[in-house]
């Protein structure tokens, strides 16, 4: 520090540190106001110490004011400190000296200082043109200097800016809010919400404050109770933001997963020493409280807006006997307590018109619900009216409002129990309540036929109501293990109570119970194995049920979040659905029919291949291919494999000439990559000669080139030629992907020649400062060896936290035990892998030796534990 380093700055720095420690110990809510207070102290003492203060005052009187968050007396640990040196008239020359005296030490402390040195007229003209400045001045607060200057600026500001710019400012805020929704999302329904800028965040309350200040003399549309609730919610979110800054050690407004446990702990939801499960629960509890608070803030801000800034020219229209569309939103025509039927009518109109609810209507509904009017005796009509809301053009919007007002919970008591339940993972984007509504909305959307991929399918659904009901109930059994079965039980109880017919109840319960059947089978099963598909068809029994199950799975996955729904998962769902449908329409294939189908494929492949390849070669290839190839692959795929193996042979012959020594032909491969047409995924076929650890090497090389493996199918020919087909996500290079695959081909060779150590290189990548492992919670790994699920293979299921090159490690471990992989299905979600390997022991049989099974389980556990 320099010699003239001011004592007061050291004091500020020390006080801030002490305050942090104290906040962690006593409760973080004390931080914001105290931080503002000690910063005030710094400015007051520093100004008083200025050597030529009198001289400055003689030239022009001035004051120092806080604006923005600092003006509101709220400084989170990473907040900007926004101050303004305000001069009544022209800014004197000595202002420069004064500002560096005040501000430089703060910069040196590393604080985020936003400062301005302005005259009255500068401020007024800036505020008129830049509403950001206007907003910050609305929170202005005196710190030091001449108090009269501050008072006279206030009156000037009210006269010149506040009154004249009121409506323009409100319009600007509205535009800002639209931008905020796009950029930060609706915080009240996100699992990684933005605490400052999203909808329902602190900013919403600031805006209410600004408008209250701008509007001046007027009656507050919010009641004292609503103000109190707003204030409490605001303090809670502010507390969370303070804890977030303390946990992150820097300014950040997005509540990221990795910071959530620490934030929950600082807010007193769990202590540090609790076990991982209790900590996870505490985070869920905290997020649930946070979402509730943010949903209330969002709602109050929206209705406040409607009340204060209604459209200028509006003619009230009567939409139905009980509902009218007024300038301030949809409302009830009759005064007095509202009846459930009227509420549903109101939401039906909201869903049809997309108009918001008025504050009065909002209050009437809340009041009716809280006084526990003889709510919903649960009639079939009520339920039908609810489903109609979803089917209308603005159904999702109306349904979300329904959730916010508490009507949905009143209608379905079970909904209120799980509404705010969140899964502490980075897989689901929304808590259960919001997810449920989104899923029903998506189902309604699919049923409407707007999405042409599902149009024909949707048209075939005879009982759309059953599907919508299933969507509504599919996750309501959450909160414990086996939520599908509990959900189905709930459906039976609740819907019977609503007086629905038996067939409807049965179908809805069936759909809820099996809503994970398609997602699980599609991402883990061998879809070329008829038994797997038959299992799904058997459970579905009828085509109608299968159709509904498929639509429900698609809608559910889409509503879960981008990690659950990708083009690749979609294609797997579709493949399973199509095959199961075929099975239901044309019946299962008998043993001879299967063999006949395989022969037909083989013959077609022969015909197709003979156009481009030599006939003798084709016959030779067909004789060498494994039987599974004719079941799992189409004729054109077989032709491609033959062509690829031809290329491999050419390359091998060339290599034999160039490198006659012991390395002859080592690591030589032929590679073909083509776009699958599904997202940014490629089908990469690699032909090479079989060697120990081949699959591990290929998996390692692909990981090294940042290609995510989604699935792998391995075909070993009788002469030891191997064609491995990988589905990979990526590469990042969308312009020159062929170069990436050429590098892959070279790397395979180097790996086998010993010029490239995959283990070392992958380790290096993991150690890079740019590498980040999954942020999801760390759950214990699971390894299961299953000999029953397939006739020909042993299934090894591995679930563990994901990390770079994990597949390489797993494959290497299996290779070391002479276990060969024949098919692999890779699913990565929530920072966790759920992989299934179809394997055989070295003698070509299943792993039927219990000793070997135990050894495989133990060795694999060792590997994934270190991930």
């Amino acid at each position, binding site marked *: *520090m*320099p010699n003239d380093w001011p004592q007061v700055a050291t004091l500020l720095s020390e006080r801030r540190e002490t305050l942090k420690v104290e906040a962690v110990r006593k409760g973080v809510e004390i931080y914001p106001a105290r931080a503002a207070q000690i910063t005030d102290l710094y400015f007051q003492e520093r100004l008083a110490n200025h050597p030529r203060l009198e001289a400055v005052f003689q030239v022009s009187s001035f004051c120092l004011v806080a604006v923005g968050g600092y003006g509101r007396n709220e400084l989170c640990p990473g907040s900007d400190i926004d101050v303004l040196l305000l001069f009544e008239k022209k800014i004197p020359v000595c202002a420069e000296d004064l500002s560096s005296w005040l501000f430089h030490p703060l910069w*040196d402390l590393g604080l985020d200082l936003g400062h301005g040195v302005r005259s009255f007229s500068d401020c007024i003209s800036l505020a008129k043109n830049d509403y950001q400045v206007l907003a910050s001045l609305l929170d202005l607060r005196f710190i030091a200097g001449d108090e009269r200057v501050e008072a006279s600026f206030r009156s000037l500001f009210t006269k010149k800016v506040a009154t004249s710019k009121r409506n323009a400012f409100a319009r600007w805020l509205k535009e800002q809010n639209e931008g905020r929704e796009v950029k930060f999302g609706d915080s009240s329904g996100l699992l990684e919400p933005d605490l400052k800028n999203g909808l329902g965040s602190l900013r919403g309350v600031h805006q209410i404050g600004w408008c209250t200040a701008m509007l001046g003399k007027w009656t507050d549309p919010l009641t004292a109770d609503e103000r109190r609730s707003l204030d409490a919610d605001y303090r809670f979110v502010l507390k969370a933001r303070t804890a977030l800054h303390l946990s992150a050690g*820097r300014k*950040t407004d997005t509540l990221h997963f990795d910071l959530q446990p620490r934030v929950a702990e600082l807010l007193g939801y769990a202590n540090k020493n609790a076990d991982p499960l209790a900590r996870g629960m505490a985070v869920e509890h905290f997020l649930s409280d946070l979402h509730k608070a943010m949903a209330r803030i969002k709602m109050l801000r929206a209705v406040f807006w409607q009340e204060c800034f209604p459209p200028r020219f509006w003619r009230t229209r009567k939409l139905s006997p009980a509902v009218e569309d007024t300038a301030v939103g949809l409302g009830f025509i009759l005064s007095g307590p509202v009846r459930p039927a009227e509420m549903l009518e109101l939401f039906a109109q909201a869903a049809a018109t997309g108009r918001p609810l008025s504050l009065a209507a909002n209050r009437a509904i809340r009041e009716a619900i809280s006084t526990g009017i003889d709510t919903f005796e649960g009639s079939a009509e009520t339920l039908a009216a609810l489903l109609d809301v979803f089917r209308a053009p603005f159904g999702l919007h109306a349904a979300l409002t329904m959730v916010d007002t508490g009507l949905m919970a009143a209608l379905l008591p079970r909904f209120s129990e799980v509404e705010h339940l969140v899964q502490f993972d980075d897989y689901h984007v929304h808590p259960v309540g919001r997810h449920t509504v989104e899923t029903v909305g998506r189902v309604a959307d699919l049923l409407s036929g707007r999405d042409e991929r599902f149009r024909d399918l949707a048209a075939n659904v005879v009982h759309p109501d059953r599907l919508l009901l299933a969507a509504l109930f599919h996750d309501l059994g959450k909160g414990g293990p086996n939520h599908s079965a509990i959900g189905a039980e709930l459906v039976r109880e609740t819907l019977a109570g609503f007086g629905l017919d038996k067939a409807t109840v049965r179908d809805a319960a069936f759909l809820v119970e099996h809503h994970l059947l398609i997602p699980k089978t599609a991402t883990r099963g061998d879809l070329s194995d008829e038994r797997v598909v038959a299992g799904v068809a058997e459970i579905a029994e009828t085509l109608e049920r299968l159709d509904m199950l498929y639509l429900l799975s698609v809608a559910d996955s889409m509503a879960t979040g981008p990690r659950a729904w990708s083009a690749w998962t979609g294609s797997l769902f579709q493949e399973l659905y199509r095959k199961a449908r075929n099975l239901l329409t044309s019946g299962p294939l008998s043993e001879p029919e299967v063999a006949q189908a395989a022969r037909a494929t083989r013959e077609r492949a022969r015909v197709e291949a003979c156009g481009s390849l030599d006939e003798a070669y084709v016959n030779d290839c067909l004789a060498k291919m494994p039987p599974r190839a004719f079941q799992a692959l189409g004729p054109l795929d077989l032709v491609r494999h033959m062509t690829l193996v031809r290329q491999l042979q050419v390359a091998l012959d060339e290599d034999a000439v160039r490198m006659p020594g012991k390395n002859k032909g080592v690591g030589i491969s032929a590679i073909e990559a083509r776009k699958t047409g599904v997202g940014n995924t490629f089908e990469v076929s690699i032909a090479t000669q079989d060697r120990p650890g081949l699959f591990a090497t290929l998996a390692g090389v692909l990981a090294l080139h940042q290609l995510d493996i989604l699935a792998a199918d391995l075909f070993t020919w009788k002469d030891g030629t191997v064609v491995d087909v990988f589905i990979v996500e990526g590469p990042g290079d969308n*312009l020159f992907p062929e170069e990436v695959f050429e590098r892959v081909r070279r790397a395979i060779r180097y790996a086998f020649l010993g010029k490239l150590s995959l283990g070392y290189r992958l380790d290096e990548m993991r150690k890079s*400062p*740019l*590498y*980040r492992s999954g942020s999801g919670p760390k759950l214990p790994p699971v390894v299961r060896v299953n000999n029953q699920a397939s006739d020909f293979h042993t299934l090894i299921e591995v679930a563990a936290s994901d990390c770079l090159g994990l597949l390489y490690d797993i494959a290497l471990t299996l290779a070391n035990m002479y276990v060969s992989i024949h098919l692999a299905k890779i699913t990565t979600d929530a920072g966790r892998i759920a992989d299934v390997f179809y394997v055989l022991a070295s003698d070509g049989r299943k792993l039927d030796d219990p000793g070997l099974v135990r050894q495989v389980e133990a060795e694999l556990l060792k590997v994934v534990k270190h991930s």
Partner: protein
Amino acid sequence: MKKVEIITRTFKLDDVKEALANLGIKGMTVSEVKGFGRQGGHKEVYRGAEYQVDFVAKVKIEVVVAASLVADVVEAATKAARTGQVGDGKIFVSPIDEVVRIRTGETGESAI
């Protein structure tokens, strides 16, 4: 401490700057540079004659940050600067031994 050098399109400067500011990065050095990468410059035609333009104008943004922040900085800069076309630029990360703030003589991370 690490130095992150981001070389990118000139019109992406503001986006990158904003992305870095959101991470609490307080200072950066920006220079106008010329160079070429994979695209190898491009040809331009002026009054009928073809000119080989070897170097393309880019901006170079240099920031020095604590090692713990590098991953965030690189991710934010990549996201802000990417268009998916040739010429999006490169990011280099290198270690920094020491930093001195000249005015105060402070060293290490507090001088960043």
